[in-house]
């Protein structure tokens, strides 16, 4: 996994609540067996018209959208389907962090495992940031995971929560699976005393 470095970036704003993973990447693109090409399909049905041409007015088709590494969205971002294609698509487009007031559980977990940072901030700060971005589309924020702070365009800072283990993994670029596999002895010990429930091979 890639290390998460501090970043300063413009923000792309999608000011809707409850943006679900079907919008982030529609199901018809999940027939792939790889992770390649998903960035082009990000927000596909909002981004392209019925003939597949980019809608020029949609933010992610504009230069300022493309320049942003941070997405600012409404409450409960990433609800719905568990598809990890959603964070893969956001990362491939170029986003490194998403700011909202809350995230759906599965999306948050998937994002953290791919070094896409979900930043949940209080609604007062969220409203202020929406306002700042509306006033000055070139406004920037600075994300520092080590200190868990988001610096807003007016220079003030807001702290955000993150699971300490996920934070450590993102800062160091550690993949969880390696850590799990190092606990083989504990897993084997658990298995040795576990009552057999089912055997799908039998």
């Amino acid at each position: 996994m890639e290390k998460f470095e501090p970043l300063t970036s413009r923000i792309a704003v999608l000011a809707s609540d409850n943006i679900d993973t079907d919008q982030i990447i529609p199901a018809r693109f999940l027939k792939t067996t790889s992770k390649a090409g998903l960035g082009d399909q990000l927000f596909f049905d909002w981004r392209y018209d019925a003939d597949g041409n980019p809608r020029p007015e949609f933010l992610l088709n504009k230069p300022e959208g493309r320049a942003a590494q941070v997405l600012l969205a409404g409450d409960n971002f990433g609800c719905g389907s568990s598809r990890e294609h959603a964070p893969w698509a956001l990362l491939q487009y170029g986003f490194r962090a998403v700011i909202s007031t809350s995230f759906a559980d599965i999306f948050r977990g998937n994002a953290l495992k791919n070094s896409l940072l979900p930043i949940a901030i209080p609604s007062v700060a969220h409203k202020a940031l929406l306002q700042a971005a509306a006033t000055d589309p070139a406004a920037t924020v600075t994300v520092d995971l080590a200190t868990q702070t988001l610096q807003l365009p007016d220079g003030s800072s807001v702290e955000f929560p993150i699971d300490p283990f996920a934070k450590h993994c993102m800062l160091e670029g550690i993949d969880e699976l390696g850590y799990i596999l190092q606990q083989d002895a504990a897993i084997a010990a658990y298995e040795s005393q576990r009552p057999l429930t089912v055997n799908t091979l039998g």
Partner: protein
Amino acid sequence: MPRTIIEKVWNNHIVAERPGAPTLLYIDLHLVHEVTSPQAFSGLRERGLQVRRPDLTIGTTDHSIPTYDRSLPILDEIAGQQISQFEKNCRDFGVPFYGPHSEKQGIVHIIGPEQGLTQPGMTVVCGDSHTATHGAFGALAFGIGTSQVEHVLASQCLLQTRSKTYEVRVEGTLRPGVAAKDIILNLISRIGIGGGTGCVFEYAGSAIRSLSMEERMTICNMSIEAGARAGLVAPDDTTYQYLSGRPYAPQGAGWERALALWRGLPSDPGATFDKRIDIDASSLEPMITFGTNPGMGIPITAPVPDPSSMNDPLERDSLGKALRYMDLPSGRPLLGHPVNVVFIGSCTNSRISDLRAAAEIFKGRKVNPKVRVMVVPGSQLVKKQAQAEGLDRIFKDAGADWREAGCSMCIAMNGDQLSPGEYSVSTSNRNFEGRQGKGGRTFLASPLTAAAAAVTGVVTDVRTLI
């Protein structure tokens, strides 16, 4: 100290707890399907890893598989390749699976219970958010992403943090025409699609106790639509009767040992939950959604809400945006609104009791000529059972399309889909923009309400037909 069933199941599966890390939790049953597993199997190959416990893993093809005659080739090349790759992955790693031609093939959340694989007290995961379906058996069952599918394949474990507990207490008796689906749609409409975030639901109360296992599955299935990680129902005699004699259920002395363990699972008297909500089942009406998320639901006789009545600007915008997408006026009920398609199927409502309920409405009636109706059984075994009961004849005689098993128009990635602008009444679980096909518009409802719309051609209160 009294404990909830959620805490009991969690505690029984702790492999390791180390400071600074989430709990390492053991997984009893891992269900895999063609859409969310390919990159996980690729990850295993890249790392030179094996599947640790193929005996606790089972695969099926459901999401991208066509529902037309299985003797025909798969027309969508990309879907065909995904299914072939899935079969190869399962073979290469020794994972048993039900391919397109298996008589046990079906939707992943239908086959687990059907085969007796899903059992009380288990931890069950799948790369699919509707995994909570298995919670109906008193299992802690939740959806995971593809990275975690790889973790479970490689280690049979997951790093997890404990969720909050949320008691959903449903008391009273459902009135005629009101179904389990209406209970869960009512809950989601009340607490919203983020209302259960960070929580596991326990559904309890007399109304839940009186439901069949299939009805309990419908309710647990949609826990994720309220944002919950999982939702479960404590096991009872209804659970044990359902399980007894199923292919993978314990037998003989094993059954007695299992029963003794299972009877200790229900929440202890006095156990406390972090949150609680009460629902009066006897006051419920058939529910229907009008908007673009499952929380936008109303009793079928109630008016569609008016955005201008909302105080929060983002909420007002969201509702306005939803009504524009749906092209619906606010302030009056959906009753009488024309319908183009009716879909009866999905892991929410494609079990035999769902098909029986729909068939009761279709019996002796014809599908309205303006409506296209698809009835998609949840598994090949459900299909076989329905045919043995003559339900397929009822559907076909009425003018409905009787299909092969799969997820079908719930996720619309297999060619079964709405055309832009079309309205469906669907027994599935999501009404997100484009969920059933780009530009399609979905009204979620019970199989009864869906069947009523099929025969009348408009959104209908099923109570007028029974």
